[in-house]
């Protein structure tokens, strides 16, 4: 049931463009700085989503469980 809440179907317009932006966000950063940016990004997006069920499903999916 919870898996249904997490949209795992294509939902991003211009996927290649988004992917390039994501990688570019790390341009010139050390691994450590990239970790920091990733952590902030996760927090910002998690707050935007807000729904705990969706977040829980995403955490599970990300771990590959």
């Amino acid at each position: 049931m919870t898996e249904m809440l997490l949209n795992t179907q294509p939902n991003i317009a211009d996927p290649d463009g988004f992917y390039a932006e994501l990688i570019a966000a790390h341009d010139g950063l050390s691994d450590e700085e990239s970790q920091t940016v990733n952590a902030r990004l996760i927090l910002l997006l998690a707050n935007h989503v807000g729904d705990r069920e969706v977040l829980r499903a995403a955490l599970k999916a990300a771990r590959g469980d």
Partner: protein
Amino acid sequence: MIHDRYQLAFKLYPYARSADQDADAPVRHPVVVLGGGPVGIATALDLGLQGIPVVVLDDHEGIGQGSRAICFAKRSLEIAHRYGCGQAMLDKGIIWNLGKVFHDDRKVFEFNLLPEEGHRFPAFINLQQPYFERFLVERVRQAQAEGAPIEIRGRNRVDQVEVSDGGALLTVATPEGPYTIEADWLIGADGASSPLRGMMGLDFDGRVFEDSFLIADIRMVNDDFPTERWFWFEPHFKSGASTLLHRQPDGIWRVDFQIGWDVDRKTELQEENVRARLDAMLGDVEYEIVWTSIYTFQCRRMKKFRHNRVIFAGDAAHQVSPFGARGANSGMQDVDNLGWKLGAVIRGEAPETLLDSYDTERVHGADENILNSTRSTDFITPKSKVSHTFRNAVLDLAETNAFARPLVNSGRLSVPCTYDGSTLNTPDALEGGPARTRPGSPCPDAPVSDGFLLDGLGHGFKLLAVNTEVPQGALPVVSVSTESDPEGALAQRYLGDATTAVYLIRPDQHVAARWSSYDAQAVSEALSRAMGKV
């Protein structure tokens, strides 16, 4: 010989020979409390004020020096007020509302506790633990003068306990040699390292946190720091991985440095080393060091708090990290919960099994406290690299993003727990009633025509009638009307969408049952249930 394990702040119960020491056979007492810390003394007050004879045995002659606890929560003050010493604590304590959180050299944000109006007591006061304990002992003295059968025996160290079905036999060391006494009920309030737990071979499992904290209580010479709670993560002055600054009465400040696990206590506690940390933090400020100590902590609890006629309370039963001030505060809630139940059992009004609800309700409370304080600790002292990265990301974002501020956890302040699911509760029958006063909840205070609501509740069972008539009968009735409260706090806290309400309130001011109107049969059933009879 009995040696002091710590210095005394107040010598309040010097050793005096008791008649029990000259008796031919061990004298039997209804209740013996092992330990005269805040929890033991409060237990004696609760029972003594009910007229139940109680003997407290403590291995010292007074209250320990050094302020361990400094933050006392509203609920502890309400409980103390029920015993008759809450006002003295409030008068001496310091009220604070503003907190500031720093990371490195930046202020991340500040918060205001914004206390809810319409309560006799504030959300928190800061008060040195020795004062808190002294007010309790002074209240004991007053109660004794009024006839309460309480005895505190200083320099009485319990060395041996033999537990049986009917109680316990205690061997007590004194400066004049040992003696034995018997107890129908033995309360283990002998602190985190509880010798009683050890003597009975009972478990105390949980999680050890590999970090130490250096506390310095200091008196500043020119004291112009504001009355606020300041908390630094990774402060630029490098005196600790985190640092807390908080005001106490008498111009004393608590400074708490997180200094890591592998430290040499003796070296760290040398005055010049403590001063080096303080100077880096405070700069050019003159101060006097009043007390220093290093502590480490664990979050753990006993599996069961009740072992037939032996009942554990306070730190002996559960231990939490100091973040969130849940130690002494939760111990006071243990006492609040245990006092009336043990009283009812001893008077023969309730079956002994009522005491099992002390176990389930306070284990529930302890688990909630352990959960909260573990979460705070994990935020303050991240256990892995990724956890550290996320922690700092939260702090980075919190400066400009409101959403990240509630994620910052430098200690969640202690609030009493709701005994959801307790067998003493009667299912909620007040349609539209507020969630915060559902059965199991501690009653929130509210203004009423002649003062505050909680003044009229507690001690025995009470019926609270809101905007409705309830006949005086088996139970005393407290009648209140929302008309006398123009701010609407009473209505908001006790009616919600309902227009009238009847509450059955336990002696510890928790809600046992509620309805929209009075029904003698329903009240009688709920009362039986709350007394553990069904």
